[in-house]
């Protein structure tokens, strides 16, 4: 086994473990129903568990896996942040924000994003430790590109919530 295969397998296992954890946590919190609030986490969890690792496994579909993984993380972040804002802890304190909101869940979800990012970068740029990082921050596949998508999609979600009642 090469180091590349070993590292790739480890990162894939991490992706599956995080996805499984999120999927089972959602099932524990609320059962699957046809309501979008419950259907979306169920479908997203299934996609994260099955499709994302599959897409990440092959070089030809690596980019699709990377984009799908990131978009599912954005979706989860926006929806869980909405949930926390709707059920804001009272009285508000730093402890309450840290422990009684979905901040912890969102942090775990971003862990899944960073694992996907590491897997994508290692596969795309290779395993040369001396290779310099290139590319413009705000362009695909760098962090700025994700930041723009997170902000814009959050705004679109908020508009849908605000305008279309």
């Amino acid at each position: 086994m090469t180091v590349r295969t070993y590292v790739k397998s480890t990162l894939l296992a991490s992706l599956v473990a995080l996805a499984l954890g999120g999927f089972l946590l959602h099932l524990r919190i609320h059962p699957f129903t046809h309501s979008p609030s419950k259907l979306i986490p169920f479908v997203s969890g299934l996609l994260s568990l099955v499709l994302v690792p599959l897409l990440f496994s092959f070089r030809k579909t690596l980019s699709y896996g990377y984009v799908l993984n990131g978009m599912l993380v954005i979706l989860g972040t926006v929806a869980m942040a909405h949930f926390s804002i709707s059920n804001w802890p009272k009285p508000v304190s730093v402890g309450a924000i840290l422990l009684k909101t979905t901040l912890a869940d969102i942090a775990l979800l971003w862990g899944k994003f960073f694992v996907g990012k590491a897997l994508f970068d290692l596969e795309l740029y290779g395993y040369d430790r001396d290779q310099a990082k290139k590319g413009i921050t705000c362009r695909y596949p760098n962090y700025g590109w994700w930041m723009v998508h997170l902000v814009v999609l959050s705004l679109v979600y908020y508009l849908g919530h605000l305008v279309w009642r």
Partner: protein
Amino acid sequence: MNKFRLFTRNWWVLHVIAIAFFFWLGHAVHLTIVP
């Protein structure tokens, strides 16, 4: 269709789908789950 035109078309299709989906989601999610 050349590669650039195909990429441009796919880019638009993906963005329209993503924006429509998130707009619908903002409308559709009713937070009735109480922890």
